[in-house]
């Protein structure tokens, strides 16, 4: 089955790319944009059928490799 993961910078960690995107959107007259935070998206296919077990495994992967928990949070969708 496929598990989706999103990794984002923690609140309070400077995200210069998100900031540049926000400023560009503002410059394109999307004046309603207050903040942009950029993240990473992973589509992980595992050969585990049980959803709970698959997600537990993916969580382990997040902690060990996909996210750097000093600066990033992960969300398993």
């Amino acid at each position, binding site marked *: 089955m496929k598990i989706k993961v999103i990794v984002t910078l923690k609140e309070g*960690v*400077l995200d*210069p*790319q998100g900031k*540049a995107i926000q400023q560009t959107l503002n410059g394109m007259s999307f004046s309603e944009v207050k903040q942009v935070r950029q993240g990473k998206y992973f589509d992980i296919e595992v050969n585990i059928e049980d959803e709970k077990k698959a997600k537990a495994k993916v969580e382990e992967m997040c902690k060990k*490799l*996909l996210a*750097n928990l*000093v*600066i990033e949070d992960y969300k398993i969708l």
Partner: protein
Amino acid sequence: MKSSVIIFPGSNCDRDMDVALKKFGFKNQMVWHNDPEIPKSDLIVLPGGFAYGDYLRCGSIAAKSKIIKSVVDFANSGGLVIGICNGFQILIETGLLPGALLTNKYLKFICKNVFVKLNKNESKYFKNIKKNVLELHIAHNDGNYFCSKDELKSLEDNNQIAVNYCGQNGEVTEKFNPNGSINNIAGIFNKNKNIIGMMPHPERMIDKYLSSNDGNFFFENLIKNLK
């Protein structure tokens, strides 16, 4: 004195480091990341470059290489480990050094000479070094040192801040902060001061005809402290 430089796919300062170490008397050997273990060494260096193309996060894939277990064991038993630039990023990703290295504040790859102030504590790296401020080279996209307030306090309390970006006369101020690093941090030690990670490249500054030779102070002093 024996040293080992680890080469990862994408390392590009490995040979500069080899030249620098040999120039100052180290018997250096190059070690491939996929080797099972490191030959007997007094010093291990993780060189600069772009290991694994900086995929995922700089240093993250290299930190899972086969050789890393030996590096961690060596470091944990008190062995001297230096990580320069990408090597610093790898040391952070292995967890041997705290914090994180984020993308430079102004999103630019920075390639220039900078001045750095050294913390001349009792580490083997800077003890008795002849100069407090060195002119070294930086070349990175992700050197913006970040850590939590608690971690920063712990780094300060344990005297672990090894190198700060500064002006020519050692002024550590925001004006001389090239990449947004907290408190101008350019390099840190682990608690025991046997591991150092830093963004500036001393190995690029060992020949006055090519660049400058402030890196000589670093290598000369290091081998002297090891003898």
